């Protein structure tokens, strides 16, 4: 083998090795995921047509509330849009304190199970602890799902689905959650 061929091969191999590294880094760059910041389009547009709202969320990568059928779905969302209705759920105490979840007419499940909407990292929580959902009239309601240590609304242990008002603390173990406007 001539010296030239060997030199070319040597440098060529190094180049190809680095090419692999660079391609791999490019893959990481295009593989960023997690959260995405969307500049908000006209609020009014989203508020007037629920279709427009759905499009906004769909553009955000994942539609949070599947397009609801016209009948009862429209009613629920109409309820959700009422003035004074809570718009978000806030974790006030506990290891997740500070997190918020937007209320978009969907059921919010709470528990240690990893597929819950809010994964509680709390020794006193059951895997499927409770859920918070709007009933037919759009009133947000909390229901205990047969948890071991119970769900408390103020000081009362829940025994049946109970309507929620903004600002009422829901306590699960060390975690306290509130609806906020």
């Amino acid at each position, binding site marked *: 083998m001539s010296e030239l061929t060997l030199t070319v091969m040597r440098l060529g191999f190094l180049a190809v090795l680095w090419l692999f590294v660079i391609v791999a880094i490019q893959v990481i760059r295009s593989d960023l995921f997690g959260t995405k910041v969307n500049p908000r389009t006209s609020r009014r547009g989203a508020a007037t047509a629920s279709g427009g709202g759905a499009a906004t969320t769909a553009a955000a990568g994942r539609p949070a509330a*599947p397009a609801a059928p016209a009948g009862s779905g429209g009613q629920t969302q109409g309820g959700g849009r009422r003035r004074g209705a809570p718009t978000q759920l806030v974790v006030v105490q506990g290891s997740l304190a500070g997190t918020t979840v937007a209320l978009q007419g969907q059921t919010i499940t709470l528990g240690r199970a990893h597929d819950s909407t809010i994964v509680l990292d709390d020794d006193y929580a059951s895997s499927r602890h409770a859920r918070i*959902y709007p009933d037919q009239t759009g009133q947000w309601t909390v229901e205990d799902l047969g948890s071991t240590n119970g769900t408390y609304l103020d000081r009362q242990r829940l025994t049946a689905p109970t309507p929620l008002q903004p600002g009422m603390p829901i306590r699960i173990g060390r975690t306290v959650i509130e609806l906020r406007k």
Partner: protein
Amino acid sequence: MSSYDLSGDTGRAGGRRRAAAGRVVPRRRGNTTISPQGAPNRRNTELALLVFAVLLPILAYANVGLAMDSRLPAGMLGYGLGMGALALVAHLLVRRFAPYADPLMLPIATLLNGLGVVMIWRLDKAGHLLSGNFPAARNQLMWSALGITLFIGVMVFLKDHRVLQRYTYISMVVALVLLAAPAFFPARAEDFGAKIWIRMGSFSIQPGEFAKIVLTVFFAGYLMVKRDALALASRRFMGLYLPRGRDLGPIVVIWLLSLLILIFENDLGTSFLFFGLFVVMLYVATERTSWILFGLLMSVGGAVAVATTTSHVKVRIDAWLDPMAAFSANPPKGSTEQIGQSLMALGSGGVTGSGLGQGRSWLINFAAKSDFILGSFGEELGLTGLMAIFLLYALLVQRGLRTAVAARDPFGKLFAVGLASAMALQVFVVAGGVTGLIPLTGMTMPFLAQGGSSVVANWALVAILLKISDSARRPGVEPAPATEGQGGPAR
């Protein structure tokens, strides 16, 4: 106000600590919405990179053949196809069983393994000068195939990494048995002091490599349960959180254990790896810097105490402090020329190296294929190639840590951190030893170096990481629509 609004003033960006849930929507600025974005399924990217990763070692193989024999090596097509087929099977099973897994880990592991086999084959060819020569490349190839088989086994049978959480304490016992076992086997001359092998006839395994994974299961399970006690019950003193005495228990136990390994098995690497792994995971689980401080103090203290009493460790430290002593006119007793040789090899490689197959690797006459394979790479690929190899490891570790960030469950987070940092620590310990940064330890470069147990265990490690990343990147199930009856079935 729209029900789609996340209308935010200043709410704290969600999930200060361990807010895992992908569906929790944090709020930040006034006029933007922040929405969780699912990771794309990147299987085609993985396939493309995998083809690249198979072609590179084949190129290296051809390069070695041309440089040493002036012709393409005979087995090129066969080995290339065999490696390609194995990688393809692994890829197809990832497609089937972990469709959302990270796209980089499998190609990087394949590439490192392939490069390792080529380098071992090249050192075999320089054989007549190597002591105790045997066709190690063929063995390594066989072990790699076995490793990929284990990878496939983990893919198929480990449905969910959280299952391992049930075996927290069983894995502790298993890890202790694996770690302690070599101490009870008679030492052999060719092991050069370190007792980290179990030998049965001609067959030998290095249980420490497997203990690495099992022990990570234990640490992750244990720390997940105990981390609140370890993090919160502490006093503040001079800006440091001092843990309570009784919470120091586990770290002291692990420390004593790693000292025992050091004393009875003479293995600096294993004991450093396990103690380091524990401290890293402790830090990740509790966010307390004081643990790192304690860990460093304890490891330095332990190492110094053992080094002054044990001859084997002392030799290693002396060789580190003065690597060229063995070449002097009257070398000190028990000195070893290994580090000096590897430094020479790295130096003669220079920036771009001598070219594959054109170095003088046989001059590293001991353990050139295993502990010192980095020296051979440094000589033939130069600094440029060695940097690329280190970057490949860094990428592998980064993907592991990224998996941990994305993982939804605390056990998965800790487990992924543990596996990634075990890999990182091992690379650091080996590379540091070969380049003379820290005392040399008896560990092997993951995937690259000769050693069946190492290759097999690291393939299993990558498989578990891929499984965790699959569950971390899998898009969440949509919340049930709240339109029917009581608001849809609770899941």
